[in-house]
């Protein structure tokens, strides 16, 4: 049978739709299969709608500090329905944007749920069409970009119950703002929802099993973040294991165990944010012999699965579960398929948390760098002595940089504070270009900006900090 396409992409999140666009740019005849909404989790249920909510929360929180700026309003208030409606509107707009991009690049969108069958040169793609019936298509290559979903542990009640126990999906579209909330898990997703609901006045407690919040971040950042959140009234249970979560008549109840002691917490609602599971089911992967590891597809350095013509990218292919990681793998994978020299798959991937204050990092934490055998030089610079930060009233946080003492390689950068998510790319660029401390010191940072703290942090690592 003649091949229908050069490339079929399954899933249209930031992994899948970016892969499809790049393939079309390179002249490949491309199709994309989506069972739900174009744009995947990222645009519809993840990155974007959460940021819309967080913005509402952030603006509302600022209203209570207006006095600091010489301003005032009568009585700040919010309309929760409108906040959620705005978030949905934003998601919808971007979803339509992806539809436009597919059309513009002449990418065929096949609406339905895909499944794979053995085939050559690549597996056959059988789509159960949304409109009814099935369609089988085949291409030279297939990219699996089916994403992931919230991890659930039903055995101890860590699973949505359709009413009071939520995952991110339900937490994005509630009818009302809960008066009290328990968030299980203090990764980026848990912390962001906690930050949002707290900003609107909810009584929020975050429960973390490990010994600190945001466990992937540098320890100093975790500590500073907890302090800053506590100042805003967030509560934490650290090193606490959930033994049971259950809905009650009036709300939810959590049994905790920490340090040998047990505790019971109650609230109106709970959010389960304990991790991510890859969408690897019902795809026929077992029949094809695709290797899986803890719910994710195993790939090589070109995103190949080991099955002829089958590749996997994004959340379904493992951590870090980030949209830009999915897109980066998409570009690398498609360029590899097309025989074009693509970007280094091992490029440093920044990670951001959009709480108040924001957190952003790239590369190794200080502890990890040391564990990896580096002799390190560490620099820090607090925003409280940065002119722009003082003028803006955003005194929280700092920039920390970790260098290899021998080579001057920037191993990692860690920031907490206002707008740091917009600044981390500077260090990502530096790391990708393999600059050393010398180029970073020689770079002129504009004054007054928060970014000057990045410069100072580098200077500090080499004993040359200016404003401290």
């Amino acid at each position, binding site marked *: 049978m003649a091949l229908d396409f050069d490339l079929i992409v399954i899933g249209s999140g930031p992994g899948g739709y970016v892969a499809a666009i790049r393939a079309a740019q390179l002249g490949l005849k491309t199709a994309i299969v989506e069972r739900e909404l174009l744009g995947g989790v990222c645009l519809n249920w993840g990155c974007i709608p959460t940021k819309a909510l967080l913005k509402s929360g952030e603006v509302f929180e600022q209203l209570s500090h207006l006095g600091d700026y010489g301003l005032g309003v009568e009585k700040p208030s919010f309309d929760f329905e409108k906040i959620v409606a705005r978030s949905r509107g934003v998601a919808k707009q971007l979803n339509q944007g992806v539809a436009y991009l597919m059309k513009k690049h002449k990418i065929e969108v096949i609406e339905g749920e895909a499944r794979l069958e053995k085939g050559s040169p690549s597996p056959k793609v059988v789509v159960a069409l949304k409109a009814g019936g099935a369609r089988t298509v085949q291409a030279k290559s297939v990219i699996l970009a089916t994403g992931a979903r919230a991890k659930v542990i039903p055995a101890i009640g860590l699973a949505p119950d359709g009413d009071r126990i939520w995952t991110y999906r339900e937490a994005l579209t509630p009818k009302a703002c809960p008066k009290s909330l328990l968030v299980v898990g203090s990764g980026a997703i848990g912390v962001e929802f906690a930050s949002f609901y707290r900003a609107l006045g909810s009584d929020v407690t975050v429960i973390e099993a490990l010994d600190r919040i945001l466990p992937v971040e540098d320890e100093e950042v975790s500590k500073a973040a907890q302090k800053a959140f506590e100042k805003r009234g967030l509560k934490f249970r650290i090193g606490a294991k959930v033994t049971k979560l259950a809905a009650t008549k009036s709300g939810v109840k959590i049994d905790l165990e920490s340090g040998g002691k047990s505790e019971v917490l109650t609230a109106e609602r709970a959010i389960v944010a304990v991790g991510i599971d890859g969408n690897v089911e019902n795809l026929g992967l077992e029949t094809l012999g695709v290797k899986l590891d803890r719910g994710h597809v195993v790939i090589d350095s070109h995103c190949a699965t080991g099955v002829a013509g089958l590749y996997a990218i994004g959340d379904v292919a493992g951590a870090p579960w980030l949209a830009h990681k999915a897109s980066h793998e998409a570009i690398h994978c498609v360029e590899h398929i097309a025989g074009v020299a693509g970007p*280094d798959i091992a490029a440093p991937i920044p990670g951001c948390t959009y709480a108040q204050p924001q957190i952003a990092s790239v590369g190794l934490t200080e502890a990890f760098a040391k564990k990896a055998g580096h002799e390190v030089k560490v620099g820090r610079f*607090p925003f*409280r*002595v*940065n*002119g722009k930060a*003082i003028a803006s009233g955003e*005194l929280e946080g700092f920039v920390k940089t970790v260098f290899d003492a*021998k*080579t*001057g*390689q920037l191993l990692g950068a860690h920031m907490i504070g206002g707008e740091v998510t917009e600044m981390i790319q500077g260090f990502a660029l530096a790391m990708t*270009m*393999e*600059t*050393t401390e*010398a*180029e970073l010191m020689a770079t002129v940072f504009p*004054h*007054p900006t928060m970014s000057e703290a990045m410069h100072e942090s580098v200077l500090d690592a*080499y*004993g*040359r*900090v*200016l*404003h*401290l």
Partner: protein
Amino acid sequence: MTDILMPALSPTMEEGTLAKWNVKIGDVVKSGDVIAEIETDKATMEVEAVDEGIVDAILVPAGTAGVKVNTAIARLRGEDEAAAPAAAPAKAEAPASPAVPAPAAAKPVAAPAPVAAKADGASRVFASPLARRIADEKQVSLSGITGSGPHGRIVKADVENAKSAPAPAAAAPAAAAPPKPAATAASGQIPMIEQMGIPAGSYDLVPLDAMKKVIARRMTGSFRDVPHFPLTIDLEIDRLLDARGRINAALEKQGVKVSVNDIVIKAVALALKAVPDANASYTPEGIAMHHHADVAVAVAIDGGLITPIVRAAEGRTLADISKTMKDLAERARTRKLKAEEFQGGTFSVSNLGMMGIKSFNSIINEPQGCILSVGVGEKRPVVRGDQLAIATVMTVTLTCDHRVVDGAIGARWLQAFKGFIEDPVTMLA
């Protein structure tokens, strides 16, 4: 108080020797004053003050080697304490470090001309800063490495992979075995020589200074990578010696004394103009045909050698060449040359005649296409017609980079050179 820090004279410099202080405690220093001299691999550089003030303390005494870049070497006291710069720390929270605004903290002292002594070759090599630094540390030449980054840019991984390339073959045959310094540069493992049968305690290990390392690296690289061959010719120099006598008599009043080597430099330059194909450098992008004869002359100095350059020698008078050479050689011996005075020649001359060497074969000074080895001028029997006669003869050997200068070009150049040397008047033509 302002600390003066050990400056980095090149992007790769990590430490240097603080050779000399030109100021002492209590001296008033103005911005721009030369306050100290710092020695790196090939040059001594002057350190200029950036700030004004009174020298309050000298923290590193003159003669200290291995001073790390950015260590405080002296402290200046303000005549009236400088004001704090812009943003003063807010009083808000109790800071972890002292909240007092530091007055103009630690500024590095600007270095004069940066030393690029470690740049390999003339053609620009694209490499990430980190790759460059690691290559430098590992003593790996970037010019031999293929880059895997965008547009062939050399990245860290390329250098790290190159590092494990096979070492040059061991044990050269007894005859003319060249010393192999670069091969032994492996990370501080002294016993290498002992593994090769030299018993411990039977030798002293002199650490490699920066100059030795550069020589070892560049010479090893050149000898290994440049396909080179020698061409040897005898020159009769009686007429030259005679001319030299007369020239020196004429220049006596100016206090100039032209050496045979000065005349060799002039003849080299004119021969390069006559045969421009020999004034060339191989680069991967093409052959660089040089506009001027910038003649580099090897000068032996304590601890190594250096090749100061007589720029555009083709247009200079003998008196000028002589004066220039004298100044360069003197400053070379005291390591006071600026980087641009010993980097970037187009042709080299090495003369061991004064040591009685009859003929020898130098190693190409990359990226130059040729190097001329000049032997002793001595009376030798020569055959004229069918008669035996006595003449002052000097043997020279031209080593050529076959990628730019093939046998015929080399021979033509030697012919032209021989013409100028044996009949110096023709240099006036």
